């Protein structure tokens, strides 16, 4: 009951719901809590075997679905902490290989606003730093790529985001991160990758750099954006001709995407988000089309208005 009144108070006074990800420019206010559910559906029927784009009858169309729980809490106005827990399941449309499913990796992130300048005429400019860590929650195998539910690697990332928000509501966002990945342990005593035979079950995982640029409009409860993102794995081998993919492959891609988010008219503590992404180029990854839908729900623990 007490919590319920808190919601009402919160919905009356708080700023509108907005998408919050590790790479956007949005900070939430102190002691506010957002939580949500995210469903994503990714499909591809072509993939890049090294640089060669191909189909594979033993996979057909590959579908990966993810249900995630998401939370973001404002420790202070400058520091937000976020958590995501995905449940992933995979399925090939043909062939004899089995799909897999299970809880994948929890991601924990601290998002810190380094600086912000606001002017009445030009809007605001923010710099945000994010430190995050990923940890596999279950002992799933990374050795059935692309049907494994993940790469089973512990990881930490450092990210820097620059965000410009104009007073009329237009924004520009640029973000880059580097991810260090801990070695992965296979169930087998040797493997061949990157033109070398390794007599060990430990696989060194190359680091990953990523870049995201987005532009959009955000006013009131509505937010819409177009984005371009790239991932560059800093090492790892190509999938050889007719070989199976391997956990430490050099997985690179460029994606374009769009998203729209709006609060439900009569339930302002709930917002829906729809997103789409398409892989325009890649290496050792599938040419994926991804649809994502999210429902975000806002708590407001102490009822303080957000800035």
């Amino acid at each position: 009951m007490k919590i319920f009144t808190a919601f009402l108070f919160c919905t009356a006074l708080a700023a509108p719901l907005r998408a919050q990800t590790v790479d956007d420019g949005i900070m939430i206010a102190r002691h506010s809590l957002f939580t949500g559910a995210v469903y994503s559906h990714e499909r591809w029927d072509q993939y890049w075997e090294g640089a060669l784009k191909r189909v594979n009858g033993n996979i057909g169309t590959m579908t990966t679905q993810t249900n995630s729980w998401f939370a973001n809490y404002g420790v202070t106005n400058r520091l937000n902490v976020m958590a995501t827990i995905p449940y992933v399941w995979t399925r090939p449309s043909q062939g004899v290989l089995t799909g897999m499913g299970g809880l994948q990796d929890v991601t924990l992130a601290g998002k810190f606003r380094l600086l912000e300048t606001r002017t009445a005429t030009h809007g605001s400019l923010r710099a945000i730093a994010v430190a995050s860590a990923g940890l596999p929650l279950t002992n799933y195998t990374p050795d059935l790529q692309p049907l494994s539910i993940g790469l089973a690697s512990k990881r930490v990332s450092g990210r820097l985001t620059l965000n410009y928000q104009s007073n009329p509501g237009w924004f520009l966002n640029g973000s880059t991160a580097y991810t260090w990945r801990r070695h992965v342990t296979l169930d087998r005593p040797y493997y061949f990758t990157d033109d070398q035979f390794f007599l060990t079950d430990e696989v060194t995982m190359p680091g990953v750099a990523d870049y995201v640029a987005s532009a959009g409009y955000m006013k009131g409860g509505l937010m819409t954006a177009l984005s371009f993102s790239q991932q560059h794995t800093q090492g790892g081998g190509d999938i050889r001709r007719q070989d199976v993919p391997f956990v430490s492959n050099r997985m690179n891609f460029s994606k374009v995407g769009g998203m729209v988010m709006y609060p439900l008219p009569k339930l302002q503590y709930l917002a829906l988000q729809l997103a789409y992404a398409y892989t325009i180029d890649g290496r050792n990854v599938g040419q994926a089309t991804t649809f994502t839908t999210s429902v975000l729900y806002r708590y407001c623990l102490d009822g303080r208005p957000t800035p």
Partner: protein
Amino acid sequence: MSKPWSLSRRFVAATAVTLTIVWAGVSQEFPHAATNNDADAGTWQMIVLTGPTQFTVAPPAAVSSLDYQAELASIKSAQSRLTNDQRKAIEYWSKGGVLRWNEILLELVARADLPPAPNPDGTYPVPDANNPFADPQFPFGNPPYAARAYSYVMVAQYEALKVAWYYKYLYNRPSPSKVDGGVQALIPSSDLPAYPSEDAVMSGVNAEILKLLFPAFVEEITLKAGEQRTAALLSGKATASDIAAGVALGRAVAPVFTARAAGDGMGAAGGSPALWQSLADAAVARGEIPWKSMDIPPRPPMLPLFSRVRGWMMTPDDFVKERPGPPPTTSSGLMAKELAEVRQSVDHLSRAQLAIVYKWADGASTPTPPGHWNFIAAPYISAAQISEVRAARVLALVDMALHDAGVGCWDAKYFYFNPRPSQLDPGLKSPIAVPNFPSYTSGHSTFSAAGAAVLSYLFPTGASYFDAQKEEAAISRLYGGIHYRSDIEVGKDHGKRIGDYTVRFAQLDGADRPLR
């Protein structure tokens, strides 16, 4: 005289990049130091050769000769200015040439172990030995090809080393560090005579045979062979003339084996569309559901006539004699029961069972199951601190049994042409690719039982471990959803009987007890 080796030295740095097997998390290898030099190895029974005197090794110059003294001086000079790469090469080869060549062989097989990609029209190209760098590369290092390759290299090496041992003890020329205190022994020295150099013999014979088996990797192979000779020289194990005699002997032995390989039936093992159809028709005529490829698009069966490839310890009649009886008929209740067991298992796999599946998957880009048994043998060879010739014997025996197991298993597979579980139950999905050949009997089970039989004979203290590995390898195929229980049980029995042919040879080859 030392010219070829100075050339090799230049290649050492390049080699470290091109063909490096990486051991991570494994402590530094102990240098190979045999507790017994096996002085009588020249009398051990030959397998293919007629005897050590089939090849001539000219007597060496006396250690007091000017030529020999010049060779010693050149070693001392080279040792006084060793580069880091040369030290690394010495350390690498100090593990023992036999074990290192076995690792190189595992890597070459893993490198070659890729099936051809389909053509746009749904057919598949065939790897071409005369065009090894093309797509598809030659060879496709699949399990039968690998079993045969391991055995050729390891048997040829073993035979060449027995010849070398004969001449070593005929001429008794000591190693350079024993002759001249000024030559350092950079790996533990022994009283093993140096002429002809065993390292050079291995480099000579192995490189020649590997070039035939893995022609696309001729450069890496040649570099490795050169590096081994360089390391032998720089470590104070052998002089240039020890090495020259060794490499000449190795290269003289190789053609016996390359000629055998050229005529052993492998070239015809792929069969023809008419043959593939006749195998299916024969199964239908017996009232059975014939095997079909589960690959999309369907792929021709893997090496159906590998069953006719020449064995080492078994004659064609032996293979027929040892052929297992038929599997449960595809329409029988027993088959339905076995199929249900596979489905039940694969649908309720524990994480521990899945780990066993992947430990033994040995599919694309791996050394294959025969390579896995070489990998299992290696630490036992290391720990036993045996001579190179005895180490070579272990792997020759193991790999002959594995090859014969491959031939015998392929004989059963194509004689019965039995479908895989996922063919009979389209709802059955596997956590590993379904091998592209008939189900009965299990190759893993047959290979593993043959390998375990020979290793248990050679290393009795490891017998229970080898047996446990065999059982795990065998059942991994049921967990993986690709074999019925009868494939596994019959395969293990068949493999054991095949392995025993090699064990019976080993009991009488003169290595375990003197001849007569």
